[in-house]
């Protein structure tokens, strides 16, 4: 395999994203929202405004459906502290996955569909680059920034949460084992899933925007996890994270298989027939 060609393709794609305001705005805004705005709102709002008692009632209901280990963690906390603790350590976990998913979706959308839209695909296909090298280069361009964004986001989120909650709890809430597993095991699996789906869609989409919109369905599993958690059906314990991560890695293997079957240079050049 031509490693330099793979790196050249990946670097070029990342550079293209960095130079596109259309792509950079969501890449900056969304992580700030998840890393700073959301935890700040959850931690600071109860201090600034009176929270309706029904909110705490909802927290109590949710707590009842949670495993005993989680209930033990919050024993002794006030209703307000319980709400903050559950939000920043459990509820925001799946929401955080939106960051790598979005990064991989945006970068991978621009991969083949963007090349075709800008008429640059022919030069690329005329060059001595194999299908595998092309696919890996494009995938790396989406995977590495997605994982790095998640890692950076995690560091930022940890700092923000600890700064905001240390006074209240008298200890550092993050990092904990759950979040470390989330970032190191689930984030790479989810990122690869996002880029795999998007690259496959991007091969057949007419343009970058169409690819991004269609591939937006990758967010559905994350929405499902959030809803299941709110409904009290599923909680992101370490075991659940390991299991969901394993499931995503299986999907990823299937996506590589499907992607290699669907990879046709002729369609990449001429568009879907």
């Amino acid at each position: 395999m031509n490693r330099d060609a793979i790196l050249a393709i990946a670097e070029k794609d990342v550079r293209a994203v960095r130079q596109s305001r259309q792509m950079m705005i969501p890449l900056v805004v969304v992580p700030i929202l998840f890393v700073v705005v959301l935890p700040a709102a959850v931690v600071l709002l109860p201090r600034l405004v009176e929270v309706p008692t029904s909110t705490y009632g909802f927290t109590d209901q949710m707590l009842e459906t949670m495993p005993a280990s989680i209930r033990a963690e919050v024993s002794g906390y006030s209703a307000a502290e319980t709400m903050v603790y559950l939000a920043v350590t459990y509820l925001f976990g799946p929401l955080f996955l939106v960051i790598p998913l979005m990064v991989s979706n945006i970068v991978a959308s621009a991969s083949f569909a963007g090349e075709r839209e800008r008429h640059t695909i022919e030069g690329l296909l005329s060059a001595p680059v194999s299908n595998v090298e092309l696919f890996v280069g494009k995938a790396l361009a989406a995977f590495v920034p997605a994982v790095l964004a998640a890692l950076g986001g995690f560091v930022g989120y940890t700092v923000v949460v600890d700064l905001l909650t240390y006074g209240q709890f008298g200890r550092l809430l993050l990092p904990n084992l759950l979040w470390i597993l989330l970032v190191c095991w689930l984030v790479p699996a989810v990122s690869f899933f996002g880029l795999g789906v998007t690259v496959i869609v991007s091969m057949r989409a007419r343009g970058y925007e169409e690819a991004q919109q269609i591939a937006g369905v990758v967010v559905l599993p994350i929405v499902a996890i959030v809803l299941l958690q709110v409904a009290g059906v599923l909680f992101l314990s370490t075991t659940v994270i390991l299991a969901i991560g394993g499931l995503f890695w299986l999907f990823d293997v299937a996506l590589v298989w499907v992607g290699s079957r669907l990879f046709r240079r002729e369609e990449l050049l001429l568009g879907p027939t």
Partner: protein
Amino acid sequence: MPDTVPGAVTDLRGSAVREDDETVAIQVEGLVKRFGDTVAVDDVSFAVLQGEIAAFLGPNGSGKTTLVRLVNGVLRPTDGTISVLDTDPTERPIPVQRRTGVVTESLSLYDRFSGRYNLSFYGRLYGVPDEDLSARIETLADLLDFRSYLDDRVETYSTGMKKRLLLARGLLHDPDVLFLDEPTSGLDPQAARLVVNHIETIRRERDVTVFLCTHDLQVAERLASRIFFLDDGAIVAAGTPAELRENLWPEATVVVALDGWSERLRGEIEGLPWVQDVGTADADVPGTTTLRFELDDRDAIPKLVDALVEDGIRLYRLQEDRHSLEDVYFQVREALR
């Protein structure tokens, strides 16, 4: 096999220019490419010799671009075989693409990056050694006259500069075969001349085989040793420019500036069996009579000169009135109607 134009040479194998020690760079046999019900390339066979410039001419949609993509291994043929530098690009595109350069018809460049980045990116894809890459980029930018714009974003380049950048990209890895798809389209005469001169130079100095697809008949006439006319995906006429002319117009026309002409002599010359007609032409040598002689074939030209000189005529200028490639092109098109 599709019909060819009656009377047009079909020198598909390069026999007119092949010598024993010459090698075939591109060999295509029975090539067919269909997109659904549309036949884009229809049973095409030809050979291009190493170091030759072969021009493929034809109207839009005649299959020129598809042919380039097939021969360079970007598209897979529906039927037929292709060999480029003794390798099948359909089965092994990478070794072929390593030794070929392409100037695509579309300006397939990354507009938001500089010209230097574009070249450097492709240099890495083509495996140009890091230590040579910068020097090669600058040498080509110098030769193609865009060195001072090398660090500007490509979106600020004119079409002419983009074409030159594409040509530089195609030459970056020193290819043995160069595919040029409309290399001069959209260029002003000065830029077109620069590109044409450079193609001529690299062919001469580096023995590069050039596969040229073009609408520009002047460019084809100047550069190509053989011409292939494509229509509806099929080769309908082929040969060297001279062969095509001779086969389409076997008669010869010469314009002669002479002194000592008389009506008696006119009668005598018109009576010769290989002279078809004698008429006047615009005088271009002062103090002489300028006449146009239409002859049966080119072999009659020296006979005409002998006859005139024997009759005491002084010749000041003799020029064969040759049909241009444009005439050939339209004659071929006319014959296809």
